[in-house]
């Protein structure tokens, strides 16, 4: 326990989580360039505060549904960096035995249900997980992450309506990073205030500064309290920005440099770091030790992944259907 007390400890914990994701993603860039990782890889750099803030308000009994940009959610949910990295290395030690890759991280024990790479495709599943909790009398919340691009999909509207109609315990976390791949929000939506859309389905909905992890955490705490109290679903529009391109293939021609720089000035990691410094919670030694711990964790994950094994080709057709329990 630091001299800063519980609040200080928590602040340092949040910073550590943000830094973990940031450094993990930066390492992914290097590994991609070195051809250790292939496929589509979507980085979470710039958006870390969303996953970290929301995850603080979930318990082990809650469920998470995420998208193809989910390394950060997986790490913040407690999936070991080793398993996530090994997945990207295509190794059997990976979170999905190397069958899913970057876009399809799963962890049943941690109730982490993907890793869905169809925009909007995870929303109905989240409603169903919440329905199962509701029907079995469990108090769980299902946190469903999706980008603002998903609000143009029919599955978004169908699920908003169903979840509100049946008062399902879903926390809808819309990560509005302003671009659906290369299509800006105002080029694809007639109404760009996304909370309005959810509010039209009679559910509480509001916008949150998604660069400020404390603001995200506070909003998620309020939302999950409401949901656990039987109030039905809540929609949060988390306003954020990805600092890097959509994926490793994206030349990023559709955004102005000035816009990117303006958002970088609100870097969620720097924002919290500076606040903790100002509040006298974070010392340089703390920061160094966080960076060192995180570097060690990621080095370990990379070494683990690199030393991992490939699933035997004979196992290719396993798990198309369930195997008989022996």
């Amino acid at each position, binding site marked *: 326990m630091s001299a800063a007390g519980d609040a200080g400890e928590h602040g340092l914990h949040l910073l550590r989580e943000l830094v973990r994701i940031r450094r993990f993603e930066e390492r992914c860039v290097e590994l991609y360039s070195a051809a250790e990782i292939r496929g589509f890889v979507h980085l979470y750099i710039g958006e870390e505060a969303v996953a970290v803030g929301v995850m603080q308000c979930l318990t082990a009994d809650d469920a998470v549904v995420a998208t193809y940009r989910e390394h950060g959610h997986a790490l913040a949910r407690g999936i070991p960096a080793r398993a996530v990295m090994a997945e990207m290395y295509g190794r059997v030690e990976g979170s999905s035995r190397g069958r899913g890759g970057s876009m399809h991280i799963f*962890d*049943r024990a941690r109730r982490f249900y993907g890793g869905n790479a169809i925009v909007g495709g995870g929303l*109905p599943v989240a409603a*169903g*997980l919440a329905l*199962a909790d509701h029907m079995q009398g469990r108090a769980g919340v299902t946190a469903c992450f999706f980008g603002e691009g998903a609000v143009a999909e029919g599955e978004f509207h169908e699920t908003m309506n169903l979840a509100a109609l049946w008062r399902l315990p879903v926390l809808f976390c819309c990560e509005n990073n302003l671009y659906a791949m290369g299509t800006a929000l105002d080029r694809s939506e007639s109404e760009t205030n996304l909370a309005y859309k959810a509010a039209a389905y009679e559910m509480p909905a509001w916008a949150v500064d998604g660069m400020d992890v404390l603001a995200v955490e506070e909003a998620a705490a309020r939302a999950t309290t409401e949901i656990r109290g039987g109030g039905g679903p809540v929609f949060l529009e988390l306003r954020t920005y990805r600092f890097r391109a959509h994926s490793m293939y994206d030349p990023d021609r559709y955004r102005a440099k000035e816009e990117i720089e303006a958002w970088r000035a609100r870097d969620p990691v720097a924002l919290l770091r500076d606040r903790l410094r100002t509040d006298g919670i974070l010392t340089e030694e703390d920061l160094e030790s966080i960076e060192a711990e995180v570097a060690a964790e990621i080095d370990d994950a990379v070494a683990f992944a690199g030393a991992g094994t490939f699933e035997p080709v004979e196992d290719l057709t396993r798990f*198309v*259907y369930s195997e008989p329990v022996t």
Partner: protein
Amino acid sequence: MKTTYREAMRAALRDALVRDERVFLMGEDIGRYGGCFAVSLGLLEEFGPERVRDTPLSESAFVGAGIGAALGGMRPIVEIMTVNFSLLALDQIVNNAATLLHMSGGQLNVPLVIRMTTGAGRQLAAQHSHSLEGWYAHIPGLRVLAPATVQDARGMLWTALCDPDPVLVFEHGSLYNVEGELSETAGPTDIDRAAVVRPGTDLTLITYGGTLPKTLDAAVELAAEGIEAEVIDLRTLRPLDVGTILGSVVRTHRAVVVDEGWRSGSLSAEVSARITEDAFYDLDAPVARVCSAEVPMPYAKHLEDAALPQVPAIVAAARGLLGGP
């Protein structure tokens, strides 16, 4: 006891709800209305709105919710009014239900049953009448059933619910009023094997679902001409019970595949290919097919009749294989 296919299916649903509290039904107009085809009539009154859930017209959302509920420990039975409407839920069925187990490295099985009607014959035209079960039979990760008899209507659902993976059940709309004998103690039927529903020696007629009654009628006509046709009801379209098909064809040396789906890129093509691959040298004639005309299903009765496989066409195809006119 005499019963209809519809009543047998309803008894199966009721039985599932009684037997397992994790089972619930979800779909459009299955509760208050009693089911578009009256299959679930009375179940809302008996089991209540928590377990017999009327849904909005949101096929993707309620099929996806079925997937999520299955992941969350329930045993949902989702009803989609017709196979044509299921196309609105293709994303959930093909991208989620069928993939999750393999893509998650064996972690996430989806014990979900989806029922839907299929097929033509009721003048419902081109958006309510198609036979697209062959598309679903193309997809690894799904199990595809086509109960064609009262016994299977009663018994397949039970077995499907015991399956840890997604099962699609296709009920041909023309079968609901078909009557048959059902034992009072009828239980589950297997969903692994095709059935030889009429033994014969001269050729094999292979079919499933709504064309089974027509194919059996054709076999009776053929018998009157001295041709003994063996009739196989595929029952399960994926995985195909190739063993039963080949076992018959190597004895009869001739096969006609009867399928209400279109010929091109179809289930009938698959069956025909399997026979050709594995029993080519046992054949005395090329495999023949009787399928729907390659048109969107028309409304007018005479045109719809002309588009569908009919008894005379099946009889003619069989005669053709035996060198007849």
